[in-house]
């Protein structure tokens, strides 16, 4: 059964369809939250995100776009928690080199750098700034397209691409640093 059909049934009021949606998406949602936050808070924030998702579900206008809509809400829950953690926004966006983030860059390769495999990348994600980490998680771990990542993050596609480039570069530097 497709996500769209489950969403439509849930919007009609089917509890079982809603439970099937939660079953299908609980782990991806939790993994995204976990990559962004520590394990102490990941479960709480994931649960808060699900509550927000259920409250907003009746108003979802495009059931066929469930995944980016879902991660938009989950991201909001994560950012709310991060705002609580960081008093100043400068910390939240990840350091002094913010000017480079918003420069569009169309030269994005199709796959993550060959230097790191998926598992290693996951373990290294914790060291990345928040904005770079989230696009990596959404794009490579949740398999969202660049356009969907842009919708989730509320930024242009070019910004997502530049964040991906920067994230890959940082990952590569991490790996090279460890090797040397």
């Amino acid at each position: 059964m497709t996500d769209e059909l489950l969403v439509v049934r849930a919007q009609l009021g089917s509890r079982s369809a809603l439970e099937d949606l939660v079953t299908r998406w609980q782990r991806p949602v939790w993994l995204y939250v976990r990559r962004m936050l520590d394990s102490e808070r990941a479960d709480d924030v994931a649960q808060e995100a699900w509550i927000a998702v259920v409250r907003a579900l009746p108003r979802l206008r495009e059931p066929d776009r469930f995944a980016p809509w879902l991660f938009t809400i989950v991201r909001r829950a994560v950012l709310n928690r991060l705002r609580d953690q960081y008093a100043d926004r400068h910390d939240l966006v990840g350091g002094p080199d913010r000017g480079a983030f918003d420069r569009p860059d169309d030269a994005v390769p199709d796959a993550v750098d060959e230097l790191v495999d998926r598992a290693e990348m996951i373990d290294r994600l914790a060291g990345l700034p928040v904005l770079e980490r989230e696009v990596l998680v959404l794009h490579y771990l949740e398999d969202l397209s660049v356009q969907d990542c842009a919708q989730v993050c509320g930024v242009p596609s070019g910004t997502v691409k530049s964040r991906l480039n920067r994230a890959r570069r940082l990952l590569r530097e991490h790996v090279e640093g460890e090797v040397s």
Partner: protein
Amino acid sequence: MSNEEPRASVPEVVAGLNETLSRTGRVRAVGTFVIGLAGAVFVAALWWTEPGPLPVLTQVTFGLLMVFCLTWAGYGTWLLRTRVALFATDRVVAAWIGLAASALTGTMLVILAVQRGSGTWGPIIVAAAFMAVAITLVVRAHTHRTALLRRERTLNGKQES
């Protein structure tokens, strides 16, 4: 980190949604809004149709009652917008409850105005406005639900073919 799993199981996550999905919560939210609004309209009608000038204390009492009812209506609105999920079928039920409450409140307004001889056009216009809004909500709720049911049939057809 790569081998971690969520600590909460799916049933636990679903159980955490019970409050948002509870029927009692939805009924309470709709009831609070409808009763609060109907009460405010009814108190306003009583106040408006009182014969002769009222003592200050009575006016203050009417004012406080209005604020009380409007507060409940506002609380109901807040519940509906932020705390509970009204799905398509719930919206249909809620819209019919709103229509019934509008009809009842409108009828009482007109009866009250006739009994007190304070002019019937005002209450009739107010009642008609409430009915018009309530009927619009009923039509919209049914249209939305019908569209979803149509979409569900289409998707079921695609899945089977």
